[in-house]
């Protein structure tokens, strides 16, 4: 595609200056939004306990500092007291909930037997399932703190522990309107198993006004040993009273539900009564609270309407919502991408096979001469090679170089070549579209080939390019554009991109009759088709895409010829690439938007508008715009989810891309060597491409003006290019 300078008007300068000022808040806003996304992802990672040390809390360290009386005492410990459950009294305790699936089932069982219980809730779960927590309180059960994110608290600094307790109280208060003084630490068990570390934590919790609740009897239901075993484990010996440990979350709890339905009547028959933990000792809470400092951990300080409670609960919900949204979009994007890859492979290979079959022909050979139009603005480095390659074509050509008021003597360079059949038309400065229009008017043949002035065509290219015009339905033909300068990494990435774009994408698009762009670097049109499309317009920056869409909508077929090759010079630096792509993506959006009325085009010629336009919008704008999610989740997953799984997923994506690329290279009979740069492409190039897309999207939405910019030419494409032509 050509690079040009839009016709400058007197008003351009102030417009440009204004635009520069307007850019700034845009970047600040983008940075703020990014910061917010990072914050929410961090919050989500915190809520899923991804910041805690990896080792699971194991009791059983040294217990020299734990008083013997404590080790032999009851399972309920406050700052200055310890309680043992009275005989024939059971406090059922459930850890890790509330769970949206299992907690209600457990509540149903408890309800049926009219038995109260104590739920040691995980704060994030309360924030996520407030209705379940509310039902617990409504049904007469008691809630206790089981920390906010279920970490192993022994490995945490004390401020993190305080946050874990306080936030859980907030979540409980926010959901149920009740405060709680009960605390059970994750991975704790019987009081007789207390070690030094956990004793310290218990004392600390006591100072904060908490009552630590251990257990007498562990049902071991977390291991899902079977209903009989759970009932057996949960039954205290000899009619003793007990705090019984069960779980209402953390996986399949159907065994717990079933066991409970047997355990309760059995124990009731033996004369047991059931109670909540504080229900067994009415004075307990008041006593625990006496002489404790009045901090936020004081339940009175956390009213259900407390804004801090609201903040953490809604923070968790926002983070959950964002991640859920991201995941679902990612799944849709992934599915569509995979579908597209499959379509590409199937249809592109089919297309290539059909075209390469020995008997394939478009009809009678097209040998009539064609007009070649080369619009040029300050192209002295490459123009001579371009024109020479055109004259060397194995097809009769009339070459019209339209010089759009170059200041570097481009026209003179062509004149001095004194080649037969080459004319130079000097037109007043008017932009690329006007130059092409002038060239079309000044040329005479019914078939028009457009070639950019930085492009070199192979001798056979023009002849092959125009063969499809034997089919009267074909209105335009896209050629195969190759990257001529492949020495730099940036150019190598573009080479990969071009080969895939031309050999897979264009074949697929042809199959669905929606080739979006006949490239300015090499494309052929029927004069009547161009006229039907209304010539080349300058209201978009992608005049080639605009023209192609207009030709489609005028009812013509557009096809792709892979063996009509031209060699073009691509941007060799990131900065130039950015500007070029910025213009392309902006221009493509302009062209799609300009032709939006095509969605309602009637009849068979309107198929492009009805079918092709949405397809193009999806694959050229929407999907690439959502691609950043892949990177966000790659980083998020690497740090906070299963690292190995993330790496495997990432590798899988790369492999799919590699396979696609290999296929494209094989179809184009290209050497596979440059593909080593493909994994690297994933780290810089892809991100650059979607940043460009986002940027041009914002420019489009805000109505900013984007200008043509010209590449710095080296003429390298012409020098290094067509090995086939040499």
């Amino acid at each position, binding site marked *: 595609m050509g690079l040009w300078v839009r016709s400058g008007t007197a008003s351009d300068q102030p417009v440009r200056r204004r635009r520069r000022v307007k850019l700034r808040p845009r970047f600040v806003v983008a940075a703020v939004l990014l910061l917010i996304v990072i914050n929410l992802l961090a919050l989500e990672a915190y809520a899923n306990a991804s910041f805690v040390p990896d080792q699971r809390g194991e009791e059983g360290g040294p217990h020299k500092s734990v008083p013997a009386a404590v080790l032999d005492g009851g399972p309920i410990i406050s700052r200055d007291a310890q309680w043992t459950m009275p005989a024939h009294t059971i406090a059922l305790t459930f850890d890790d909930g509330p769970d949206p699936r299992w907690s209600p089932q457990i509540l149903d069982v408890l309800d049926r037997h009219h038995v109260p219980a104590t739920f040691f809730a995980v704060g994030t779960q309360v924030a996520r399932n407030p209705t379940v927590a509310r039902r617990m309180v409504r049904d007469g059960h008691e809630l206790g703190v089981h920390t906010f994110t279920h970490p192993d608290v022994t490995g945490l600094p004390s401020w993190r522990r305080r946050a874990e307790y306080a936030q859980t109280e907030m979540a409980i208060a926010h959901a149920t309107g009740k405060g709680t003084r009960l605390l059970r630490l994750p991975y704790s068990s019987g009081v007789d198993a207390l070690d030094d570390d956990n004793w310290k934590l218990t004392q600390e919790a006591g100072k904060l006004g908490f009552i630590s609740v251990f257990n007498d009897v562990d049902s071991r239901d977390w291991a899902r040993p079977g209903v009989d075993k759970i009932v057996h484990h949960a039954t205290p010996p000899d009619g003793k009273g007990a705090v019984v440990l069960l779980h209402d979350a953390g996986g399949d709890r159907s065994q717990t539900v079933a066991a409970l339905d047997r355990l309760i009547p059995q124990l009731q028959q033996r004369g047991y009564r059931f109670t909540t933990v504080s229900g067994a000792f009415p004075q307990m809470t008041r006593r625990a609270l006496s002489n404790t400092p009045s901090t*936020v951990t004081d339940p009175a300080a956390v009213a259900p309407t407390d804004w801090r409670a609201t903040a953490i609960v809604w923070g968790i919900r926002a983070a959950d919502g964002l991640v859920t949204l991201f995941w679902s979009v990612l799944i849709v994007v992934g599915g569509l991408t995979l579908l597209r890859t499959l379509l590409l492979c199937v249809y592109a290979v089919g297309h290539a096979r059909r075209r390469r079959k020995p008997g394939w022909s478009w009809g009678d050979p097209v040998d009539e001469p064609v007009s070649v139009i080369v619009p040029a603005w300050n192209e002295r480095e490459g123009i001579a090679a371009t024109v020479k390659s055109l004259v060397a074509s194995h097809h009769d050509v009339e070459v019209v170089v339209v010089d759009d008021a170059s200041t570097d003597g481009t026209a003179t360079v062509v004149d001095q070549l004194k080649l*037969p059949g080459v004319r130079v038309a000097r037109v007043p400065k008017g932009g690329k579209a006007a130059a092409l229009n002038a060239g079309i008017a000044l040329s005479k043949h019914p078939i028009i080939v457009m070639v950019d002035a930085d492009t070199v065509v192979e001798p056979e290219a023009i002849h092959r390019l125009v063969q499809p015009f034997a089919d*009267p339905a074909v209105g335009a033909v896209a050629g195969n554009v190759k990257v001529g300068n492949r020495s730099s990494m940036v150019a190598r990435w573009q080479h990969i991109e071009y080969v895939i774009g031309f050999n897979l994408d264009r074949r697929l698009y042809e199959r669905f009759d929606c080739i979006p762009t006949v490239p300015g670097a090499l494309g052929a049109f029927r004069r009547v088709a161009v006229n039907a499309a209304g010539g080349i317009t*300058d209201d978009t920056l992608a005049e080639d895409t605009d023209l192609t869409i207009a030709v489609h909508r005028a*009812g013509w077929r557009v096809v792709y010829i892979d063996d009509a090759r031209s060699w073009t010079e691509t941007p060799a630096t990131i900065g130039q690439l950015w500007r070029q792509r910025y213009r392309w993506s902006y221009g493509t959006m*302009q062209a799609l938007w300009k032709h939006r009325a095509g969605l309602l085009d009637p009849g068979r010629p309107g198929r492009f508008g009805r079918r092709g336009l949405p397809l193009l919008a999806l694959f050229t704008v929407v999907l690439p715009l959502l691609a950043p999610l892949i990177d966000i989740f790659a980083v998020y997953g690497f740090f906070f989810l299963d690292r190995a799984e993330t790496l495997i997923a990432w590798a899988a994506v790369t492999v799919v891309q590699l396979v696609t690329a290999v296929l494209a290279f094989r179809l184009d009979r290209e050497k596979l060597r440059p593909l080593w740069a493909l994994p690297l492409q994933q780290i810089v190039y892809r991100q650059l491409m979607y940043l460009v897309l986002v940027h041009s999207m914002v420019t489009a939405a805000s109505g900013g003006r984007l200008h043509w910019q010209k590449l710095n030419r080296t003429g390298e494409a012409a020098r290094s290019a067509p090995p086939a032509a040499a």
Partner: protein
Amino acid sequence: MPPKDDPKARAVAKVPKPPQQRGVARVPETREATSRIHLSEPGAQPVFVDDSGKRGRLLTWLSIGFALICLALIAALWFSQAAATGG
């Protein structure tokens, strides 16, 4: 689906027999006269462009407003939790 008048037939009618040498140095006057020049429509505004800058300003303020609200909410969250753990 091509238009009703077959382009190829019309093309043949227009260009009788191309000269045998490559390219053509000069286009006959008559043909130049019949060629159509497509001029861009006089008042045609580039797609998306809003030179008054109104849309851009509205968008800028809306996004600044949105960003500020989000920022305030995030700040409130951090502040509230810092206050809760500071005890």
